[in-house]
C-alpha cells in the first residue's frame, strides 16, 4: 500500500493475549493443541486517487517451526481475503472452506464504510482466518502461510504467479460441461443424503436468520417506545405530592428495564446474528462443495462413457482413467471427513449460541425482576407508614 494519502483509524488496536483468545474462541481441537493465534483488528481507511478501501491489521503469533518468526503483523484488504479463499478452493475443491463476509450488504441501509459495517466485517474476517487455522488440512496450506506473513509487496508479487484468471476459467467451463450429465446417476448414496440434508438445512437456517433479525428489529422498536414511557411518569410526579415518589420510583424502574433491554439486544447482535449469518453462507458453500465433487465425478464418468464405445483404445486411456478414479476417491474421502467435522462444529456452534441466547434472556428477565421487586418492597414500606399514621374512616 504505497499510495497512502489519508489514514484514518477507526478503533484503537488492543493487544490480545493468547490466553484471552482462548476464552473468546472455541478451539475445535482443544486449546492445548493450538499453536497458531490470529487476530484481525484496527481497520484503517485509505484514500487514493482511484479508490477508497479499508485495510485490517492481521497479527499472527505462532510456535510452529515452519514459520521463520514467532510473531507477524501485516495489513490486508478484503481483496486479499478473497484471493486467499479462491486459492484454498482451488487447492482443496472438496474441502469446506469457511465463509467470507459478503462483498456488499444488499438489505438494509448499511453504508459501505459505516462503523457498523466495518466492525461486522472485521469480526467475520477474524472468524474466517481462525476457522482456517483450526482446520486440520487448511492450516498447513502454503498460501495461507504467505497471507499471514508476507509484506504487502511480497503478497502482490506472489499473487501474480500461478495459473492466471483465464486458465482457471477454462477449467471451470470444462468442469461444468462434464458435470451436467452423469454426475447425479453415479453419485454415492451418502452424497445424495448430504445434498438433501443441505437443501433443508439451508432453507431452515435462512429462515432462522430472518427471524432473528426480525426479533432484533421488534426489540429495537420496543426499546424506543419504552424510552418515552418512563419519563412521562417523572413528568407526572411534578404535579403530584403524595404519589410523587411512587411515580418517580416507577419511572426509574422502567428506565432500568430499558437499559437491560439494550444489553440484551447487544447480546443478540454480538453472538446470534453473526453465527446465523455465517451458517447461511456455510450452507451455500456446502452446496458448492457438493457440486464440485459431482463435477470431479462427472469428469471421470464422461471419460468412462466416451471410452465405452472405443474398445480398441482402452489400454491407452486406462492410466488416465486410473488417475481420475484416484481423484474421485480422494475428493470423496476429503469431503466425507470434512463433512463429519463440519457437522460436529455446527452442532457445537448452534448449541452454544442458542444457550447463550437463553442465558442472555434469563439475565434480562432476572434484572427486571429484581428491579420491580425492589420497587414493590419500597412501596410496601410506604404503605405501612401510611397505615400507621392515618385515621381509619
Amino acid at each position, binding site marked *: 500500500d504505497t499510495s497512502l494519502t489519508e489514514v484514518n483509524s477507526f478503533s484503537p488496536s488492543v493487544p490480545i493475549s493468547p490466553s484471552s483468545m482462548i476464552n473468546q474462541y472455541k478451539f475445535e481441537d482443544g486449546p492445548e493443541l493450538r499453536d497458531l493465534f490470529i487476530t484481525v483488528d484496527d481497520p484503517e481507511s485509505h484514500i487514493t486517487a482511484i479508490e477508497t478501501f479499508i485495510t485490517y491489521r492481521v497479527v499472527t503469533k505462532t510456535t510452529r517451526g515452519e514459520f521463520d518468526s514467532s510473531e507477524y503483523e501485516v495489513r490486508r484488504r478484503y481483496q486479499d481475503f478473497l484471493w486467499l479463499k479462491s486459492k484454498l478452493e482451488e487447492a482443496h475443491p472438496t474441502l469446506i472452506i469457511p465463509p467470507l463476509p459478503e462483498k456488499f450488504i444488499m438489505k438494509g441501509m448499511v453504508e459501505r464504510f459505516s462503523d457498523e459495517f466495518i466492525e461486522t466485517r472485521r469480526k467475520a474476517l477474524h472468524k474466517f482466518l481462525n476457522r482456517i487455522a483450526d482446520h486440520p488440512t487448511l492450516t498447513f496450506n502454503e498460501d495461507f502461510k504467505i497471507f499471514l506473513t508476507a509484506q504487502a509487496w511480497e503478497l502482490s508479487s506472489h499473487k501474480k504467479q500461478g495459473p492466471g484468471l483465464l486458465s482457471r476459467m477454462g477449467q471451470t467451463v470444462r468442469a461444468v460441461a462434464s458435470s451436467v450429465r452423469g454426475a447425479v446417476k453415479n453419485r454415492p448414496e451418502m452424497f445424495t443424503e448430504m445434498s438433501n*440434508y443441505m437443501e*433443508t*438445512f439451508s432453507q*431452515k437456517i435462512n*429462515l*432462522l436468520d430472518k*427471524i432473528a433479525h*426480525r*426479533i432484533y428489529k*421488534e*426489540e429495537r*422498536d*420496543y426499546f424506543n*417506545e*419504552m424510552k*418515552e*414511557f418512563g419519563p*412521562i*411518569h417523572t*413528568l*407526572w410526579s411534578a*404535579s*403530584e405530592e*403524595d*404519589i410523587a415518589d*411512587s*411515580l418517580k420510583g*416507577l419511572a426509574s*424502574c422502567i428506565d432500568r*428495564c430499558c437499559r437491560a433491554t439494550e444489553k440484551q439486544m447487544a447480546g443478540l447482535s454480538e453472538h446470534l446474528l453473526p453465527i446465523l449469518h455465517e451458517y447461511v453462507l456455510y450452507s451455500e458453500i456446502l452446496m458448492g462443495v457438493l457440486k464440485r465433487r459431482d463435477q470431479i465425478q462427472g469428469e471421470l464418468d464422461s471419460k468412462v462413457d466416451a471410452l465405452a464405445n472405443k474398445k480398441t483404445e482402452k489400454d491407452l486411456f486406462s492410466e488416465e482413467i486410473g488417475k481420475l478414479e484416484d481423484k474421485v476417491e480422494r475428493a470423496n474421502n476429503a469431503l466425507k471427513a470434512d463433512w463429519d467435522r463440519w457437522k460436529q462444529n455446527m*452442532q457445537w456452534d*448452534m*448449541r452454544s449460541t*442458542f*444457550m447463550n*441466547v*437463553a*442465558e442472555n*434472556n*434469563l439475565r*434480562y*428477565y*432476572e434484572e*427486571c*425482576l429484581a428491579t*420491580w*421487586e425492589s*420497587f*414493590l418492597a419500597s*412501596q410496601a414500606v*410506604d*404503605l405501612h407508614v401510611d397505615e400507621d399514621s392515618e385515621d381509619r*374512616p
Partner: protein
Amino acid sequence: MEDCLAKKMEITVSEAEKRTGRNAMNIQETYTAYLIETRAVESQSEGHCAPVESLWRRYSEFELLRNYLSVTYPHIVVPPLPEKRADFVWHKLSADNMDPDFVERRRIGLENFLLRVASHPVLCQDKIFYAFLMQEGGWKEMVNETGFQLKADSRLKALNATFRVKNPDKRFTELKHYSDELQSVISHLLRVRARVADRLYGVYKVHGNYGRVFSEWSAIEKEMGDGLQSAGHHMDVYAASIDDILEEEEHYADQLKEYLFYAEALRAVCRKHELMQYDLEMAAQDLTSKKQQCEELATGTVRTFSLKGMTSKLFGQESPEQREAKIKVLEEQIQEGEEQLKSKNLEGRDFVKSAWADIERFKEQKNHDLKEALISYAVMQISMCKKGIQVWTNAKECFSKM
C-alpha cells in the same frame, strides 16, 4: 362511610346482553343491556341470604343518571362513566363497541361506577340513584320529573368559554390547573402505553416462528433433533404467553383511564365555581350601577355618560313625577338586588365549603387508588418476568441437550 349504601348492599353488573329494539325515531338499533344485581347485606345473626334483585339498564340510562347527579350536586366530584368509545387501544384490541372484550371491560367499568356512587357519603343517599338500582319501569320519567335539565346551565357546555372573573379563588384556579395537567399527562401515558403494548406483542409473537422452524429443522437432525424440537415447543409457549400478559395490563390502563375521566369531573366542579363567582360579580356590578343611576337621578348630576342623559339633554328633561317613578323602581330593584347578592354570597360560601370537603375526600381516594395502580403494574411486570425466566430456563435446558 358507615352510612353509605355500598356497606348495606352488594351491587354488581353481572351480565351484558345484545339487544335489538326501536329507538325514538322508530329505527331499529342494536345495543347492549347490562344486568344490575343487588342484594342486601345481611348481618351475621340472620341465617339466610337476602334475595337478589335485578334489572337491566343500557349505557344511555347510566349517562342520564350521571348527568342528573352532576347537575343536582354541582359541588361533588361525580364519579365518571367508562368511556363511550374505545380509545387508546393498541392495534390488536378492537375499537368496535360491539366487540366482546370491549363490552366486558365496559361492564366492569359500569359496575365500578355504581360502587363509586354507592360509596360516596352524599351521592349514595340520592333517591334517583336508589331507584336506578331497584326500579326498572318508569325510572326515566322519574328523572325527567325532577326537572334537572332546566337547572343545567347551558353555559357549562361551552367547555372552553372563559368567564372573566375579577377575583378568582386561588385554590380553585390551582385545582383547575391540576386537573388540566392530570388529563394531559394521563392521555400521553395511555397513548405511549398502547404503543409499548403493540411492540411487546410483536417481540413475543415473532418468537413463535422459532418454534415452527426448530420443529422442521429437527426432522433432519439425528443428535440435535430432540433438543431442537422441545426448545421449539417452549418458544411457542413464550409467544402465546403475551396474550394473558397484555390482557392484565389492560386493567392498569383502565385504572388510569378512570382518573383521566375523573380529571374532567374535577374540572367541572371548578368551572361551576367559576360560573358562580362570575354571576356573583355580575350581580354586584349590576347592583353598583343601579345604585349609581339612582344617585344620579336623585341629585340630578350626570357623572357618567348615558344615553338617557343625552336624550334628556336633546329632548328635554323629564318631569319630576317621571323622575320620582324611576327612582322608586330603581330602589325596589336595588333592594331585590341586595337580597339576591346576599343569598348568592351565601350560596357561594356553602358551595366552596362543601366542594372543598369533597375535593379533599377525592384527593385521598385518588392518591390511594393511583398508588395501588402503580403497585399492581409492578406486580404484573414481576409476573411477566417470572414467566419469562421459566420459559428461557426450560429452553436453555433443551438447547444444552442439542
